[in-house]
């Protein structure tokens, strides 16, 4: 029997950050992890995909390098070494998870390997050890949702229908990939494998992909994906899976698609198994929490994918810090209004705050201003001039409500928007702040000028 101030259940970006923060703030802290420290994010999510995307980008660049003044005598001798790509991915993952383990140790967090069973709100059992704790932070994450489709079970058993985790463990690069679902993860995998020369189709139930994004951005992204040769089938219901064949109904017509592999990526379900019996309030999204990350049971907090608010690593981490601060007596709450969200691809998407639609729905007197990447000098210098920025602002004072970027470096650029919104900044400051030349960030300044009056570098 061991006593703790805080026990954290689950060692993903929600849990491990919470545990480190707790220890830093002086709490006696334990972390329980049944699988790999780092959770989905470090082991099978954020980091592995970005590692492979980097390789994909390099490959794409090499194929285009002639235009940039680099001669490769025989371009057909440039080939993808999938095994090597995965090895590099594994190396990066190991380095990062190793780093996190060292941080946990350095900060004095006791790490328990094994499934944590919650006996009651103060008692957690891991294998033969029982932990007593004043506070419990649940950070057990989520798992891919497997829809109930005719024949899917059999195809899962034969290894054809897989989730993102298995796709990252394939010994060979598939030749044809069918993706069920049109969310962020689907998009990233579609772009990655398309870049690596795989024939990719996306099957999407509704008339649009990336539904939560600003209309201009999601339509812009879909267009660019189709231009790259990704086959997006909108308005399509999956009727059945048969071996490696998917039968769909597409605008009323039955069609079949074939893939060596079929990726399911249609959402996730919170990992709440073994948590129901203690009386936690759980709805279809996950464990219900307030802005302090408190659940309905005093002393129990839930953070990250398991509360189902945002399935994003940085939200999990931020929620972890909020939970710990509240436990340690420091008033703290999370503000979901400004949460950034990214899509990694070629180009990328970075977005934060309200979409134009949301801002109008919430009753703001909205002004919007867009500026094309193609009018930016650095973008042309780099040969990456697709996309645009869109600023959504409130007319009264010009307060920035949302920023939506489709551009090569959008994921790096969105931080400026996040901090601006954190400071209740307006388009006036974005316009006035001297942005360095030549950088892509000049499009932020130009769009801000456009929201006030006129941008310099386009004629309107």
């Amino acid at each position, binding site marked *: 029997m061991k006593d703790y101030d805080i026990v954290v259940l689950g060692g993903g970006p929600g849990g491990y950050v919470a545990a480190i923060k707790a220890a830093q703030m002086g709490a006696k802290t334990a972390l329980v992890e049944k699988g790999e420290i780092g959770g989905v994010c470090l082991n099978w999510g954020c980091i592995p995909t970005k590692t492979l995307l980097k390789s994909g980008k390099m490959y794409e660049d090499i194929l285009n390098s002639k235009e940039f003044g680099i001669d490769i005598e025989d371009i057909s001798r440039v080939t993808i070494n999938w095994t090597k790509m995965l090895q590099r991915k594994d190396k990066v993952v190991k380095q990062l998870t190793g780093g996190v383990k060292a941080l946990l140790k350095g900060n004095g967090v006791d790490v328990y390997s094994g499934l944590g069973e919650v006996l009651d709100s103060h008692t957690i059992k891991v294998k033969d050890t029982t932990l007593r704790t004043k506070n419990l932070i649940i950070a057990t994450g989520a798992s891919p949702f497997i829809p109930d489709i005719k024949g899917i079970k059999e195809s899962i058993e034969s290894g054809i229908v897989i989730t993102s985790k298995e796709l990252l463990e394939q010994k060979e690069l598939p030749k044809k990939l069918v993706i069920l679902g049109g969310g962020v993860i689907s998009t990233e995998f579609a772009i990655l494998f398309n870049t690596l020369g795989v024939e990719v189709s996306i099957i999407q139930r509704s008339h649009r992909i990336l539904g939560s994004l600003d209309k201009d951005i999601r339509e812009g992204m879909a267009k660019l994906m189709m231009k790259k040769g990704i086959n997006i089938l909108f308005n399509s219901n999956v009727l059945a899976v048969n071996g490696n064949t998917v039968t769909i109904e597409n605008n009323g017509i039955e069609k079949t698609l074939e893939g060596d592999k079929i990726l399911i990526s249609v959402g996730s379900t919170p990992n709440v198994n073994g948590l129901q019996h203690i009386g936690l309030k759980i709805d279809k999204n996950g464990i219900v929490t307030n802005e302090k990350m408190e659940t309905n049971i005093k002393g129990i907090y839930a953070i990250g994918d398991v509360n189902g608010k945002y399935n994003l690593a940085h939200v999990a981490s931020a929620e972890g810090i909020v939970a710990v601060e509240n436990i340690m007596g420091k008033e703290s709450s999370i503000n979901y209004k400004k949460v950034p969200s990214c899509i990694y691809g070629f180009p990328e998407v970075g977005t934060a705050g309200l979409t134009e639609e949301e801002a109008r729905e919430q009753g703001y007197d909205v002004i919007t201003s867009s500026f094309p990447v193609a009018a930016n000098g650095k973008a042309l210098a780099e040969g990456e001039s697709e996309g645009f920025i869109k600023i959504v602002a409130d007319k009264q*004072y010009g*307060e920035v409500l949302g920023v939506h970027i489709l551009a090569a470096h959008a994921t790096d650029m969105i931080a400026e928007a996040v901090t601006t919104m954190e*400071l*209740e*900044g*307006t388009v*006036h*400051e974005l316009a006035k702040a001297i942005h360095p030349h030549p950088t892509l960030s000049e499009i932020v300044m130009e769009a801000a000028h456009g929201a006030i009056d006129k941008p310099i570098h386009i004629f309107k």
Partner: protein
Amino acid sequence: EVMEQTTKVLATPVARKLAKDLNIDISIVKGTGPAGRVLKEDIYRRKEELNK
């Protein structure tokens, strides 16, 4: 002008403009943001107090 300040007031641009429009002396508004920064919510709250 509302702001005749001896000590510096940390405030967001929106809070400053709002204070000016609502004729509120921002230097005596308690800021609830980081490092005591005055946010627009704080101005609205102050306005309500004054209306009582």
